[in-house]
């Protein structure tokens, strides 16, 4: 870990790892050396459950540009989902 850029938030949901689906507890976002992507540094996103061991991990390594696009897409999808939920609550 040479950059020390690491953000960790709680996660509720499931992820599909090498041994199938598992409950997630955390999302870890870092900008650091990737293991597989042919980049010096990458935005690495790990969805993990440390209690299940190091292998309970869904990992992606993205270029900075594609991580920005993902971040924007996530923001747009969440905004649309919140409107949807708000409409649903009003209709109820």
């Amino acid at each position, binding site marked *: *870990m*040479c*950059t020390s850029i690491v953000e960790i938030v709680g996660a509720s949901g499931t992820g599909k790892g090498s041994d199938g689906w598992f409950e997630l507890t955390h999302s870890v976002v870092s900008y*650091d*050396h990737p*293991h597989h992507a042919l980049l010096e540094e990458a935005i690495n996103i790990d969805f993990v459950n440390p209690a299940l061991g190091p292998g309970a991990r869904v990992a992606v390594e993205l270029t900075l540009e594609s991580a920005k696009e993902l971040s924007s897409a996530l923001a747009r999808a969440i905004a649309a989902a919140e409107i949807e939920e708000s409409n649903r609550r009003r209709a109820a």
Partner: protein
Amino acid sequence: MAYEGMIAERISINGDKHEPISAYVARPLGSGPFPGMVLLHHAPGWDEWYREATRKFAHHGYATISHNLYHRAGDGNPDDVAAKVRAEGGVPDAQVIGDTEGAVQWLKAQPWLNGKVGVFGTCSGGRQTFLYVCHTNSINAACELWGGRVVMSKEELNPKQPVAPIEYTQKLSCPLLGLFGNEDRAPTPEQVDQHEAELKKYGKQYEFHRYDGAGHGFFYYDRPPYRIEQALDGWKKVFAFLHKHLAA
């Protein structure tokens, strides 16, 4: 033609606080005596590159041990284990020092050792190499390759890394070889300047080699930062330095 052979195996050693940790050992076959090397792996973990590096040192005549600094994060693929350690904020410096002392003592207890031991590390392992040789008097030579965060700002200090290694420069106990890429961002050339200035200030024996056209990790032949000319020259510098200081 002389017979040539090597043994390489995974073993368990006593790490920090006598806790068992895993290690990989490679050494030439025969009774020796061989100089010893301890390798501190990089942030991406106790991985295949470090297995290969361990055997490379053995090929050059060194009885070499690479201990698993991430042992306590659990068993698994090195990238999964390294990701877990990254999320935990790395491993504590004090524990790294204890684990490395365990690896050195294991080597020193072997009948085939010539009594001399060197240390080598890249990336975070380069930082930890420098840190360790500032906390011991039992090492004869140290190779720090692109050690990121030897120089640390106050904001970067934390309970696991409470003191910037550069602060310990006065206690450096052996000759130091440093290899750095001038396009690296961790450490930056300015941080390498600071590192070198401290070594000069305390009259330490060192040699730094800085490579144009190279950044971080230019030895890693399987990663984009690999720079063949700089890497080949760097390996020559490493083995010349070790031969000078570790030969019986």
